[in-house]
């Protein structure tokens, strides 16, 4: 056995032991890292291989296949659940979306994801829509370049065609694709679109707004004045990789994102909503795991009452 292999075996054992929440041999782990200059690299190598395996097991069983013929219910789907393994596997669990299609007989088809589920839909023209949890979209096979986002969040990767524009309607607004990749959230009457690649035209017409990569536009209520801001374009649609990336976001916004991704409401208490966060949150297997990991990073504590979570600043806990 080469020494790399021996080191990898030791590194794997550390990674496995660390999965156990009661693991406490941090000094032993530190000493192991220090005992050989290559140990850290082997440990990172093991973590990278596990990240890879994690992605592999998240491969959607039926993504990119032609949209199945409408019928009641769907085929049984496997659910891959990943346990806690710190940050390594916390990005884990891709609950593969179960889907339902309503409106048979050639009318509009509706795709629905349950809380915490993801679903990839391949459109006939080669475009792709990834649905986040708690999302409902409808499409009409007779108008394959038009998608209505009724509720929730979706990441669109569009095959651009000058002659046949791709149109998304969300919360009464029209978004015209002039490029490739953008994310749309429609929730509680508000709408937000962010562009990763290419461009999107908001409300094509005389007062249209063109959004380029890194631009985001939000509308607080139907028909309200749109507000354009800048976002990190690498963060657009990052939920699809089971992580949420933020650049100076308010915790009000973070709470909305968390709620959508864990599939349970998150209530903001105290002045938590005005706090700000920059960084990455990894989505876990369970709401509790996701929030347990997010809490210390956000500087808040999450408490569950039934299915509702309350987010309170840690500094408010001292009374």
């Amino acid at each position, binding site marked *: 056995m080469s020494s790399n292999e021996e080191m*990898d*075996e030791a590194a*794997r*054992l550390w*990674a*496995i*032991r*660390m999965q*156990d*929440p*009661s*693991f*406490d041999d941090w*000094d032993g*782990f*530190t000493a192991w*890292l220090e005992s050989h200059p290559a140990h*850290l690299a082997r440990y*990172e190598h*093991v*973590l*990278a*291989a596990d*990240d*890879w*395996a994690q*992605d*592999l*097991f998240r*491969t959607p*069983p039926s*993504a*990119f296949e032609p949209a199945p013929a409408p019928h009641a219910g769907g085929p049984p789907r496997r659910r*891959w*659940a*990943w*346990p806690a393994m*710190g*940050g*390594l596997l*916390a990005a884990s*669990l891709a609950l593969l979306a179960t889907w339902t299609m309503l409106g048979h007989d050639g009318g509009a088809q509706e795709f629905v994801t349950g809380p915490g589920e993801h679903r990839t839909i*391949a459109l006939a023209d*080669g475009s*792709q829509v990834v649905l986040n949890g708690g999302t409902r979209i409808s499409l009409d096979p007779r108008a394959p370049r038009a998608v209505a986002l009724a509720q929730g969040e979706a990441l669109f990767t569009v095959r651009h065609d000058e002659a046949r524009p791709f149109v998304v309607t969300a919360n009464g607004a029209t978004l015209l694709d002039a490029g490739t990749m953008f994310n749309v959230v429609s929730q509680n009457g508000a709408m937000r679109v962010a562009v990763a*690649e290419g461009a999107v035209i908001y409300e094509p017409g005389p007062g249209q707004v063109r959004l380029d990569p890194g631009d985001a536009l939000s509308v607080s209520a139907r028909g309200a004045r749109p507000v354009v801001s800048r976002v990190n374009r*690498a963060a657009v649609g990052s939920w699809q990789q089971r*992580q949420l990336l933020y650049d100076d976001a308010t915790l009000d916004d973070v709470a909305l994102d968390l709620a959508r991704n864990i599939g349970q409401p998150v209530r903001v208490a105290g002045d938590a909503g005005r706090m700000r966060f920059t960084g*990455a949150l*990894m989505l876990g*297997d*369970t709401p509790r795991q996701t929030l347990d990991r997010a809490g*210390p990073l*956000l*500087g808040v*504590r999450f408490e569950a009452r039934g299915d509702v979570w309350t987010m309170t600043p*840690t*500094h408010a*806990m*001292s009374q």
Partner: protein
Amino acid sequence: MGLQRIILEQRPRLLRFLAARGAGDEAEDLLQDLWQRMSAATTQPVADPVSYLFRAAENLMRDRRRSMMSRERREHDWHDSSDRGEDHPQGERVLIARERLREAEGVLLGLGPRVDHVFRRCRLEGASQPAIARELGISLSSVEKDLQKAYRALADLKAKFDAE
């Protein structure tokens, strides 16, 4: 006792850990980051605050590494897709991934039913290692060894794919 106070008490150990864990010169900055996140006076006691802090530090390092890697990957993919354009449909990549997934499942089965079962219970269904040990009536270290076998086989498979 506030977590920040424990950070002060454990400062040398945490710094040593962060440095060994790859923080290098930034160990002080990262500890500062940890400090800011663990606001003072948490009344809710954490079962083992010291271990909690080390785990938070480990997660900090993993998240840092992962966001660095994914940024690099994104940039790479971006160049890749602009170079190759339509020749490299994303759908093809998913088909390859599904083929590889089938192969990975075959490899796990090849390690024997118990290894396959332990891996699935733990990694895919989220059962804890002690719970799996109890279910199967085996020792915790046997569960660890089974997981190690599965991880090793998957790492070998990744190396094989990388070489293709």
